[in-house]
């Protein structure tokens, strides 16, 4: 009887039950509701600004730790370095952005027949359960669910949800992601799935379902095969780093290191052309 009179406990149980029901209902949904889209539209401009700012700060620290040993330099030089550092950060930022955009431009010129939308990454899913990121382009820019997302290095992921002005993109290294791939040299087909490790720094893919006599070797390039009907054929995915038998010993599997740098994603391109047109253009 006392159990039922414990109001906090009752509130907890009721809220947990409601949330579980909502989770079960919404887990299978692919379409973003109006409320989700509205909340996302409110947060996305703030996120965009902060993501860019913090990325620059993160880059600054990375450069600082990777730099020369300042302890060996004399005090005068240190003062000079400190003075110049502020200017250098700006210069490095502009240089890095220029390099990234040039890469995107190369992709563009190699696939001129494709329609695409360039977008900025404005947020990443917290925690280590998902490898999902948010881009600042949505329905208004012609983005639809399942559209492939690439950058200058290769395949990045696919759009899984679209809001008015933002979209959710599932990276190919997410453990729920699946990409039909083909080894460029040996022409062996397999399914590339993200590993359990969703840390972008050591993100890898496992290419499973390969025959035991598959002629794969480390260094082989893996591209999309276009078989599953989501990703067009011929987009670079990554490089084989290891070939090993699967756990049941019946097939082979390859560890593939993706070329896209998921730790430093800033600009991406969403291919908006219909899949048939993309295949023709990539030929």
């Amino acid at each position, binding site marked *: 009887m006392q159990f039922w009179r414990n109001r906090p406990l009752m509130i907890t149980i009721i809220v947990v039950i409601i*949330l579980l029901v909502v989770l079960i209902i919404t887990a299978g949904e692919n379409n973003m509701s109006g409320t989700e889209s509205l909340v996302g539209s409110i947060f996305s401009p703030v996120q965009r600004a902060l993501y860019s700012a*913090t990325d620059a700060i993160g880059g600054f620290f990375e450069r600082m730790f990777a730099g020369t040993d300042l302890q060996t330099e004399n005090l005068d030089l240190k003062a000079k370095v400190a003075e110049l550092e502020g200017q250098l950060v700006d210069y490095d930022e502009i240089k890095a952005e220029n390099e990234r955009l040039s890469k995107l431009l190369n992709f563009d010129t190699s696939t001129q027949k494709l329609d695409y939308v360039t977008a900025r990454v404005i947020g990443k899913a917290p925690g280590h359960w998902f490898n999902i990121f948010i881009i600042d382009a949505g329905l208004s820019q012609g983005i639809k669910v399942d559209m492939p997302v690439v950058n200058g290095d290769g395949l990045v992921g696919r759009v899984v949800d679209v809001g008015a002005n933002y979209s959710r993109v599932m990276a190919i290294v997410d453990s729920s992601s699946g990409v039909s791939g083909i080894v460029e040299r040996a022409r062996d087909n397999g399914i590339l799935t993200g590993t359990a490790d969703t840390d972008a720094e050591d993100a890898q893919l496992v290419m499973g379902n390969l025959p035991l006599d598959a002629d794969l070797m480390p260094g082989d390039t893996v591209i999309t095969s276009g078989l599953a009907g989501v990703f067009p054929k011929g987009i670079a995915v990554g490089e084989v780093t290891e070939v090993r038998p699967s756990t049941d010993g019946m097939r082979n599997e390859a560890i593939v290191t993706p070329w896209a740098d998921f730790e430093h994603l800033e600009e991406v391109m969403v291919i908006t052309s219909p899949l048939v047109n993309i295949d023709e253009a990539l030929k």
Partner: protein
Amino acid sequence: MRYLFLALTVIIDLIFTGAVFPNINILGIAPDIIICTMASIVALEKSFTGAAIGLICGLALDIMFTGAIGFFTLPYFVAGMCLYFVCSHIRYIDSVLLPCAFAVGAYLIKEIITALLAYLLGLNVALGYRLFRYILPEILATGVFMLLIHLIIKRLYRSNSIHPKGMEDIKKLL
């Protein structure tokens, strides 16, 4: 003023969780600022406020990043309620270590529930790997970060307009 403070807390939590820590972290390890603010506020107020913050932040994260409403909301809410149940039975002494212990415990509860939900949703859990690669280092990071967060929130709670009515004695504790 109190509601403004709570709203700002939620916004800052969301910004740090979704935009700042994904860029500034050590080998993918970052503290959980939402758990830190929840633990700090519950330790000071012994109220549902922490659970409410967890509920709102979790809901916003679900809407922004997963689309599966409840995946972040449920663990944060349950962790907040556990914090309330524990804190309401402990006479709070002005200590930083106790709130740190609350934060560490709440983080662990949140991760256990998240792993359970991930398993139910068919995600690859690989709990052993995640435990040593992420969960244990993040427990440490959250505990250390809690020292800073709790000092800031304690300082803010000295203002009468921040803490709830009927808690004017809280200043003596701070």
